[in-house]
C-alpha cells in the first residue's frame, strides 16, 4: 500500500514542504513514487532519497596537537546514513589533527567504509612559539 509522507526539504534554507508517495519495495525498505511541493530539482532528489536511504552530512571538530587552535572543524564530503550518524560522530573522538592543514584536506579516507571522506573545513597552522602556553591547556 502506498502512503504519503510529509516532511520539509532540507536541501536548502527555503525549506519547501514536500509530499512523497512511498511504497514498500518488497525488500523491507521503501521506494518513492512521486514527489510534490518541491520548488526545484534538488528537492525532488532529496525527497526520493529521504524515503529510500536518508542521509545527512556530519560536521564536527577534532582535537589538535601543536596547532594555533584547539579544535579543527571538519565535515564529511557526502551523506552518512542517518541511522549511523551518531556512530560516525563517535569514530571522530580519538582523532587528532596536526598542522599544517589546508581547508579541504582529507583527514580520513572512506570514513567507516561509508564511501565518504572526512575533510578539514578550515586551515590549521602550527602554534607560534610565543603562543605556546599563552592559552590555557584545556583537557580534550
Amino acid at each position: 500500500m502506498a502512503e504519503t509522507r510529509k516532511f520539509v526539504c532540507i536541501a536548502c534554507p527555503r525549506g519547501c514542504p514536500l509530499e512523497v508517495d512511498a511504497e514498500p519495495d518488497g525488500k523491507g525498505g521503501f521506494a518513492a513514487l512521486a514527489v510534490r511541493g518541491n520548488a526545484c530539482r534538488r528537492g525532488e532528489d532529496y525527497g526520493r532519497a529521504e524515503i529510500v536511504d536518508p542521509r545527512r552530512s556530519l560536521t564536527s571538530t577534532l582535537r589538535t596537537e601543536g596547532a594555533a587552535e584547539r579544535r579543527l572543524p571538519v565535515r564529511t564530503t557526502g551523506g552518512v546514513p542517518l541511522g549511523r550518524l551518531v556512530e560516525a560522530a563517535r569514530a571522530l573522538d580519538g582523532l587528532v589533527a596536526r598542522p599544517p592543514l589546508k581547508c579541504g584536506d582529507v583527514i580520513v579516507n572512506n570514513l567507516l567504509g561509508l564511501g565518504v571522506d572526512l575533510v578539514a573545513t578550515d586551515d590549521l597552522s602550527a602554534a607560534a612559539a610565543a603562543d605556546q602556553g599563552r592559552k590555557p591547556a584545556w583537557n580534550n
Partner: protein
Amino acid sequence: MIPRERRDVVVLGGGPAGLAAALAASESGSDVLVVEREERLGGILKQCVHDGFGLVRFGEQLAGPEYARRYIDLVEGRRVAVSLETFVHSVRREAPAAARRAAAADGDPGFFVLTCVNRDRGVFELEARALVLATGCRERTDRQVFIHGDRPAGVLTAGLAQHLVNIEGLLPGRRAVILGSGDIGLIMARRLTLEGMEVEGVYELKSEPSGLSRNLRQCLEDFGIPLHLSTTVVEVHGKRRVEAVTVAAVDQRGQVLPGTERRVACDTLVLSVGLIPENEIAESLGLSLDPATKGPRVDQAGESQAEGVFVCGNALHVNDLADYVSESGEAAGRAAAAFAARNGAPAARGRLVPVKAGPGFLYAVPQFVDRGRPGKAVLYFRSNATLREGARFAARAIGPDGAPAATLLEKRYAALRPPEMERVEIDVALVPVDAAAVSLELERKEGLRG
C-alpha cells in the same frame, strides 16, 4: 602625540560582512583597513562548524569556517590591511585640519578618527574618510528573560555553548534543556547530542517555532528531541550547579497556566532567545536606530543618515543567511569606496525616499532608497506572521499627493514565515524624482494556494 594612520576606508569587524565590504572597497580602488577585536578573522562563522552556508553564493553546502575562509583568502590575496586584537575606544568626526582646510571643498564632511588600542602598538588613531560598521550581533541573555531562581553554573547562551564545544572542545554538561527555538539553539541541540550529551527538550514560549523549518527537521526530529511550544522555563533549581528546571505551559499572552508546572532534571540550561544588532559605536555616532530591526536606518548601499557611515551584515539586522550578509557587505564596501574617493567634495547623495513597510511586515531593510544611486536596490523583509496560504507582495512608489505613482514590483509567495527572510530587487529608476515614499504591501491570500 598619539600616532595616526590614514586610510580611505576603515571597516570595523572581520566577519563575513566586514570581509566582503573590505574586499569590495579594495576592488574599487580604496586603501582599506579592517579592524577586528579577536585574534582571527571570520567573525561568528569560526564557531558555526555546521554546514549550509554558501548555497546562494557558491552553490555549495559549506561549513561556516569554510565559507569565511573563502573570503579570508581573497582579502589576504589582495593584501588588504588587517589589524587584529584591536579595540576601538571611541570614534569622532573631525573637520579637515587647518593645513588642509584651504584645499578642502565647501561642505567637506571631514574625517572619522578612531582611537584604538592593541598589544603591539598601544594607543593609536586611525583616520578615514568613510567608515563601515560590520560589528555583527550579540545574543540576548537571561537578564532579558524573566526566570525565577538562582543563577547557578550551567546556565549559558547558545552562542557560548557553541564556542565552548566548537572552539574550546569542552562539553558544558551531561543533560541539557534548551529554552527558545532560535536557529542557534536548534543547531546546538544536534551538536550537543552528537557529542554525547542528552538534550531533554526544546521549550518555546511562543506558539510557533522561531527557527527555520529545515533546522527543526534536521536538528530535532532526526534525533527524536521534543519541541514544546507555548511552554517556558519558570524556575532554575540548584545552588552551585543547575540540578533541574521547572517548565510550565503558557497562554497566548505568555502567562503561566497554573497547575502545568513540571520539574525537569538537567545540569545545563541553554538560552537561545534571540540576537540583536551590536551598535554601541553606531549609537556613539548618533545614528538613529529602527525599533523594528534594532539597527541603524540606512539606504540601499547601507549608508546611514550620517554621511560616510555605512552599516552591513548583522549590525544592520539579524540575517539568517551568511550569503546575504556578504551581499550587504559588498554594497556597503563599494559605496564607502566611492564616498572616500570624492575626498570631501560636496555630497553626491540624492534625495532619501523613505521605505514604508505596511501592516504584515516585521521589518524591511533598507529604510530609505537614495534616488541618487542608480541601478537595482535590494530589499530584505520578514513577515510578522506565518502566512501558510501564501501572500502577494507589492512595492509601489507614492507620489507627493499620497497616491500610488508607480508599481515597482509585484510578487507572489507560496508561503511566508517570520524566520525566513525574503529578498527582492527594485529598479531605482522607476521611483519618480518627487516620490514621497516607497510603500511595501503584503496581502495575505486566504484559502488560496500557489
